[in-house]
């Protein structure tokens, strides 16, 4: 029973992380039909933003040593700036391009960012001590839960609620939803295309920064490919949830997180190392049964 509850907490916190990544991918896909594979590198970049370039195995912490609020603010600012810049430099020139072209452009961008990180920071993964006080465990009904996992879940919930309020209540949020449903019509009503797309990139930047901080705090390691592997799970969460649906992205993230954590805990020890293969197997079976994902999106069927 304790194992089950412990695993459940793990599952929800991992699922929340995937949900944040899936949301960013889903947001840009809804508006731009772009599957942004560079998003993983936004996450990596957010982690490296904490450090100064150095060849040593122990990280030279810079922003990472600042107090909480300026630290979060600066990392968000850096990642948002990079995300918006990527739109201006790359995607803005591809507004009329087909989704496959956009996808390939995002792959290229991903390699460019990854290699820039390699040049500046080196290929070795380095350990970073971020908010290590959060790794201490708290006692909940006889269960030892790392404080960090609670923070992770709480942070995700706060971000999700914030995003939902933004999309439902503010004029820019309503414009974004309109743009993701029918971009051409939104523009005939005066919705500024470049502004809305820039805003979507900025929001995906904030979500990426949040994921970087949570991952670094949890794993204590920074590496040039850390974002890329996270992105794969975020992406399959988006697909399982239903491409183009924001609520679907969140549900998809949780489903993948739960599947992954429970397989880690309950698969026979011999095959546990192949957990990811089982997770992907589960994804394939799921998509065979329900190809459009959990939440079906109408606009998508019309457009493709």
């Amino acid at each position: 029973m304790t194992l089950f509850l412990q695993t459940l907490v793990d599952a929800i916190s991992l699922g929340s992380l995937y949900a944040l990544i899936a949301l960013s991918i889903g947001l840009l896909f809804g508006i731009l039909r772009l599957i942004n594979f560079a998003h993983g590198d936004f996450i990596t970049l957010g982690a490296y933003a904490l450090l100064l370039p150095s060849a040593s195995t122990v990280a030279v912490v810079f922003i990472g040593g600042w107090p909480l609020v300026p630290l979060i603010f600066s990392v968000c600012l850096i990642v948002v700036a990079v995300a918006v810049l990527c739109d201006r430099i790359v995607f803005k020139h591809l507004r009329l391009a087909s989704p496959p072209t956009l996808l390939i452009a995002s792959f290229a961008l991903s390699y460019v960012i990854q290699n820039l990180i390699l040049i500046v920071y080196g290929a070795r993964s380095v350990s970073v001590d971020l908010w290590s006080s959060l790794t201490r465990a708290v006692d909940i009904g006889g269960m030892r839960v790392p404080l960090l996992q609670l923070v992770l879940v709480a942070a995700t919930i706060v971000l999700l609620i914030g995003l939902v309020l933004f999309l439902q209540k503010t004029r820019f949020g309503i414009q974004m939803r309109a743009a993701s449903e029918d971009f051409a019509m939104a523009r005939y009503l005066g919705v500024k295309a470049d502004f809305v797309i820039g805003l979507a990139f900025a929001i995906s930047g904030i979500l990426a920064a949040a994921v970087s901080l949570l991952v670094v705090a949890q794993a204590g390691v920074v590496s040039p490919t850390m974002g890329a592997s996270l992105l794969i799970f975020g992406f399959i969460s988006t697909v399982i949830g239903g491409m183009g649906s924001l609520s679907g992205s969140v549900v998809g993230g949780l489903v993948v997180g739960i599947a992954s954590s429970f397989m880690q805990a309950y698969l026979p020890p011999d095959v546990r190392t192949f957990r990811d293969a089982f997770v992907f197997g589960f994804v394939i079976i799921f998509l065979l049964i329900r190809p459009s994902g959990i939440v079906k999106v109408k606009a998508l069927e019309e457009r493709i």
Partner: protein
Amino acid sequence: MLQPLILEVNGLSVMYGRLKAARDVSFAVARGSIVAIIGPNGAGKSTTLTAIAGGIKASAGAVKFNGENITGAPPEAIAVKGLSFVPEARHVFASMTVEENLLLGSFMRGDKARAEADIAQVLQRFPRLKSRFHEAGGKLSGGEQQMLVIARALMTRPTLLLMDEPSLGLAPKVVDEVYELLGSLRTSEGLTILINEQNSRRVLKVADELHVLREGRIQLSGMRNQLHEATISQAYFGIAGFVNAEAEQATR
């Protein structure tokens, strides 16, 4: 008609790949008038209106709105100037409420207080929308959706309204309502309206001026009361003396 021109289209051509959908289209719209572009399916009517609204790039020609050159401007920049385009097939934001659909028309002016007053005014004109204010746009009937997109266009406070096939897919009774509404908008608000129609019988009842478009070219232009029905039908169908039930309908 000595009213100043609100819209001037000069030598407009639009290419779809190698296909020329509109060829050297020129016409003007006088302020406060209702102008109809009629023509068979595939004549280039939608292409012409979409190009004027900035939705597709023209390969040649120029569009002036209130004397200002708007050729090649993005659609959102044209909308802000007071030219509102209601495309064919209605384009309601189906997952968003009637309220949100209407609000979208008001955002570009950024005046929250006036947006509320405008919504109240629009709901007075469209009482059916009032009862469905918090429902998703996709749940409305075809006629209600047509009313919603017109109401949404009015929320942008346009001076020129571009309507693409407003009667398409609507019951005859609803079509009457739509045209009654468009007529009253011109009388009460002084709105200038440019309408594309395949259903020419309806639009000719309200139009002051008309242009017949076929194969991407304007075949005939003139004031409604100065054109003979036989002349219009010949331009519409492209065959001299071709008269059938459709042609009679088109000119009645």
